């Protein structure tokens, strides 16, 4: 135990130690009750068969995992989730970076305020509610998007009813909804680049593009990496928009992991396979975070 007993009152039993434990206690107990214990319970559920009505549990070993791993619907949801991530992460971080770069210039304060407002407002609004709105916009016969497509002579699209583009439609809304978040973070990072570096580069004759590419981007790389990780972890958990826009359809064209988990647990009333699916998600998240951590250390060393 570390508790340096150099001064009276410090260490395991002193008043400072007691105060420390007491101050941490409420947060830690809540954390234990609503995070630690549930994670352990999910581990337990994943190797048992739970009777939804008597709460009786039978140990079934890895049967639940074997079941979902041989379920084509699970793999479809898994692959769809990765399709969603690859599109949504590049869309969100790419748009966020683009708009941040464009906003990082001198402009009247009112204009900056209005633009930041317009780009950021969707971030604040509930995904579930904007999904309702977008469902109207995407409507095949009466939707605005198809109205404009027809107006310029293009064929109408089945935004949410065509299996080939349903996922893309969800991504479009996701990027609209979330990229303002990354824009704000990246804008702050860009503004944190020391001015002297930019000025000396421009004295050396570097243009705006070269300054961005060779001076600013390497300096904000850790923040970009954070954004990519954050967007990936968020994307792995996409649910609200999918549930409301397509409910995974048509067929299972836009089914994703959390939706699968939800359907197993609350549709099929099988807490065991639902938990097994959720744990698979956790493992993927841990892997992504570990990768990011390793990668950012590498970037920091260079």
């Amino acid at each position, binding site marked *: 135990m570390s508790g340096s007993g150099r001064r009276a009152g410090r260490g395991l039993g002193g008043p400072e130690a007691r105060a420390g434990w007491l101050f941490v206690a409420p947060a830690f107990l809540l*954390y234990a009750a609503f995070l630690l214990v*549930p994670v352990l*319970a999910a581990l337990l559920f994943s190797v048992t068969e739970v009777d939804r009505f008597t709460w009786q549990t039978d140990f079934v070993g890895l049967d639940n995992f074997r079941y979902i791993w041989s379920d084509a619907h699970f793999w479809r949801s898994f692959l769809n989730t990765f399709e969603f991530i690859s599109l949504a992460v590049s869309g969100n971080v790419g748009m966020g970076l683009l708009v941040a770069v464009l906003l990082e210039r001198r402009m009247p304060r009112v204009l900056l305020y209005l633009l930041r407002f317009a780009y950021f407002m969707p971030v604040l609004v509930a995904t579930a509610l904007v999904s309702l709105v977008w469902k*109207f*916009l995407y409507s095949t016969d009466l939707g605005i998007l198809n109205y404009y497509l027809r107006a310029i002579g293009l064929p109408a699209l089945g935004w949410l009813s065509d299996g080939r583009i349903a996922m893309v439609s969800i991504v479009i809304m996701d990027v609209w909804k979330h990229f303002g978040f990354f824009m704000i973070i990246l804008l702050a990072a860009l503004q944190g680049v020391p001015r002297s570096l930019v000025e000396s580069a421009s004295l050396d004759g570097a243009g705006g593009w070269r300054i961005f590419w060779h001076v600013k981007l390497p300096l904000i790389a850790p923040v970009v990496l954070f954004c990519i990780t954050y967007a990936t972890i968020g994307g792995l958990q996409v649910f609200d928009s999918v549930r409301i826009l397509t409910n995974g359809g048509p067929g299972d064209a836009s089914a994703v992991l959390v939706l699968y988990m939800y359907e197993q647990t609350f549709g099929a009333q099988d807490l065991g396979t639902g938990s097994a699916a959720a744990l698979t998600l956790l493992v993927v998240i841990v892997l992504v975070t570990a990768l990011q951590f390793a990668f950012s250390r590498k970037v920091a060393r260079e």
Partner: protein
Amino acid sequence: MTGPSFGARVLSALAVLHWRNLAVMIPLCLGGVIMMAPLLWMFSASLRPEGESYRLPPSLLPDSFNPDSYRHALVSGLPFVRMYWNSFVVAAASTAGVLLTASMAAFAFARLRFAGASVLFSIMFIGMMVPPALVLIPIYAGFAALNLLDTPLALILPALASSFGVYMMRQFMLNQPRALEEAAMIDGASYWTIYWRISLPQLGPALAALGIITFTGSWNNFISPFVLIKSLEQMTLPVGIVALQGVFAGAETAVLMAATVMAILPLFVVFLVAQRFIIEGLTMTGIKG
């Protein structure tokens, strides 16, 4: 308004008119309009008479001001007002609880030395990786066993477990000078007095940022009430409005949009009033993350 002189502000406004700047500003402003378009459409759809919600060509601005849908949402026996109240109770209680417990824990982690502190902190830090959907299954099972499903407590209690809040508050406190607290300790003030009278007031901006993040998160939360709440009367706004859409079976779009506008309104106001705190809070998340 203080700041740069009038002349300087006019000059910086004129600098926007430079052609290279215009090539950027025009797309930026167009983009801003496109970003707002879905929300504007929602607003004008809420003001149109019933049956005209789908009228094409669509108009982004309302052409008539017809508040019937708002009246309908508020007084026609829909549980909308009740949902509003539920959302408020859950968000306010979650926010108050998180601010208190997270700042207390952060005070201990940043200012007090005690055995096990780093272990406890690491355990809580790992929690930030756990997806909320994972813990939802056991929480559902637990609350079902305790007969707490379909109550506000089922939404408030899990929201109080915020390792992110503890982490963020601790980071903020570590960057603050500790001289005042040390002086008070030497004077023999109790730890509670030091926390309440000295540390907490210094946490102002961090409390504001975490408060807004927690409140918005709770106000917008969909999946927890979707799983834990069954009756319309206990639902919070997002899940309630989505459920009402199911009840209407696609009809009454204007009423739905009016309800959505009203559900969004508080966040709109919060953003106008506290843009600085929101942006600072997010920036803190990103750069320290």
